[in-house]
């Protein structure tokens, strides 16, 4: 147990008793260290059974069943990917159909008549987005089968980009100043150790009792990490 008791606040500072001075590092979480999957699962279950809610487990690889133990809800990611995939499909359809046919199978007429370069500020749209209506090898202007490869690729592209970028955004990454990353021992969380992290924001959090709970449940070592961003 190496939990340093925070020194009492200097008397000059006039702040509510509940809020320590700003220079004081706030405890962020307590980390319980384990060296195998069985023990960390046991530890996480015990912590959850004791009523803690703001619990996380850090491990070098995904541990199956951990979502249920920690009560992690299914992510909305698949729905985002589906939506963006459909948007990609629509983009592909509009892009190919509009540029190749202007959505007409015959002559395309602009809404503003014959004039291409009008005085309006939006006229650049009609100049630059003019459809490219050429009959190639006798293929129809609205030849949907020929546009399917492009529509398909754009569907995949939108969906896959979303899967990756939304995952990192939902995980709030990149974040290089996470308090747990300051711990030296935590560097093994990406190698061969497992950590149960109980956040100080948890209503039941108490530096000593929480650490004792972890130690009683097979934690090899506990450590309090501080959030010095406040």
């Amino acid at each position, binding site marked *: 147990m190496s939990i340093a008791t925070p020194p009492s606040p200097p008397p000059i500072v006039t702040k509510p008793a509940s809020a320590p001075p700003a220079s004081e590092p706030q405890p962020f979480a307590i980390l319980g260290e384990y*060296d*195998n*999957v*069985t*023990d960390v*699962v*046991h530890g996480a279950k015990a912590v959850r059974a004791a009523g803690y809610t703001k619990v996380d487990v*850090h*491990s*070098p*690889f*995904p541990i*199956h*069943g*951990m*979502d249920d133990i*920690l009560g*992690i809800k299914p*992510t909305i990611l*698949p729905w985002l*990917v589906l939506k963006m995939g459909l948007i990609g499909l629509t983009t592909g359809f509009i892009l*190919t159909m509009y*540029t*190749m046919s202007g959505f007409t199978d015959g002559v395309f007429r602009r809404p503003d008549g014959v004039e291409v370069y009008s005085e309006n500020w939006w006229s650049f749209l009609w*100049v*630059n987005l*003019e459809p*490219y209506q*050429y009959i*190639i*090898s006798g293929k129809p202007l609205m*030849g949907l089968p*020929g*546009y399917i*490869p*492009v529509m*398909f*690729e*754009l569907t*995949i*592209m939108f*969906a*896959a*980009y979303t*899967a*990756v970028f939304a*995952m990192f955004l*939902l*995980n709030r*990454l*990149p974040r*290089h100043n*996470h308090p747990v*990353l300051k711990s030296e021992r935590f*560097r*093994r*969380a*990406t*190698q*061969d150790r497992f950590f149960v992290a109980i956040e100080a924001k948890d209503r039941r959090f108490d530096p000593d009792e929480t650490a004792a709970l972890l130690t009683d449940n097979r934690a090899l070592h506990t450590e309090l990490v501080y959030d010095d961003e406040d």
Partner: protein
Amino acid sequence: MAAIFQNPSPTIVPSREVDNTSDDPRYRQPLVTADNDLTSVTEIVGGCAERNPSRLWLVLFALAVPMCLAFFSLIGYLVLTGVGVWGNNQPVSWGFPIINFVFWVGIGHAGTLISAILFLFRQNWRCSINRFAEAMTIFAVCCAGIFPGIHVGRVWVAYWLFPYPNQMAMWPQFRSPLLWDVFAVSTYASVSFLFWYTGMVPDIATLRDRAKGKIQRFVYTFLALGWNGSARHWSRFEKTYLLLAALCTPLVLSVHSVVSFDFAIAQLPGWHTTIFPPYFVAGAIYGGFAMVLTLAIPCRALFGLKEIITMRHIQNCAKVMLGTGLLVMYAYAIEFFVAWYSGHHYEQAVFLNRPFGSNVFGFWLMFLCNCLGPQVLWFKWARNNLWVIMFAAMCVNVGMWFERYVITVTSLTRDFLPGSWDAFVPTWVDYAMFTCSFGLFFTLFLLFLKFLPVIAIAEVKTVMPQGHGFGAEGGHDDHADDHASADDAPSDPDTKEDA
């Protein structure tokens, strides 16, 4: 579990070859051999990136970099002079550039097959080889993309390939298979890169946490995006990985189908066939697995990875190669059959011309290398001998290039009218560019081997007995045997309670 408490030894123990190739159904063979645990696997893979490069690595790098520079010099020569420096001319206006493009993009397919399709099929052996197979994909696609890029002639307006509103009121022709290629290959390249990088983030975090030097620490920290192995992060990460695998599976099949449309949409005899998409996809995987083996067999020896990329992995790759080789042979046979059965004179003439006509060298070399050479892998003794596997893989590497040569050149040199027939004579620039494209590929690949996690460390750990502490729960029944057999499986009295 005692090994975990021990300090990892700083010296590198040469990896041992353990025979795990037996197919006894009563006993599931381990995917990571030789009593490795979480610590030692991290040590082996991390060591590859942390140690000073070996002398052999430096020699190979010193060979690859000049070739890579020569490649870009040749591109400079081409751009300054014009595409006339190639042998491309009527009637063969698609010479080496398109052959090299199809060759390289095909090689990439094995990487995506391993990372996506084998993932969906829950082939756990993929974990050891998927990372460098994906790297191979990306570097091969880099090489592939350059050839059509410089083949457009005016490289400085290559961005016209992409649709963007412009003052010329000009759009790309969306009915053209060449434009489909632009979309297919750019989607494939970028999505493969994201797949590779996303899977690598947790492993880069491992390297970050092990890094000793300041620069290493900074670079890996930057690349690892602050990954901290949170269970919530892993939950979304796994979902993303599954989604990407599901998206990449149709993508990889579509890419080589679209590449084959470049040929099949044309009216030319020998090209205008419906078998091309599956034939090309099978060929791509065939050639790609050959390249995986070509790279994996030396890598595992040089980097001490024999315990992670085991003999079983090599044999599985060899079997996939043998299987896809049969598909390719079937496609060859059907092409000839349909040429005869169609009653189409021009088609028949082209297919007679291939083995017995004006340019038979390519065809018979292809036949020898693709159809005969790899058949040696039917024998168990051959699959146990790395030199023989390497020989078979080299056969396929050569054969698959000549397959594309045969398809492209024999059809173009002999089309409908004898008046338009002509021979194809490649120039020294053609040969040099193709050779030097390997320089680009190997430069990138050697840099990857040195600086990035060569093995998907996190994924390999999940298929080790240590990866599932609490019994055969949660769809991991396929590893029940691992638990029973492994010496260091958790023998905790509470294991049952947890399960």
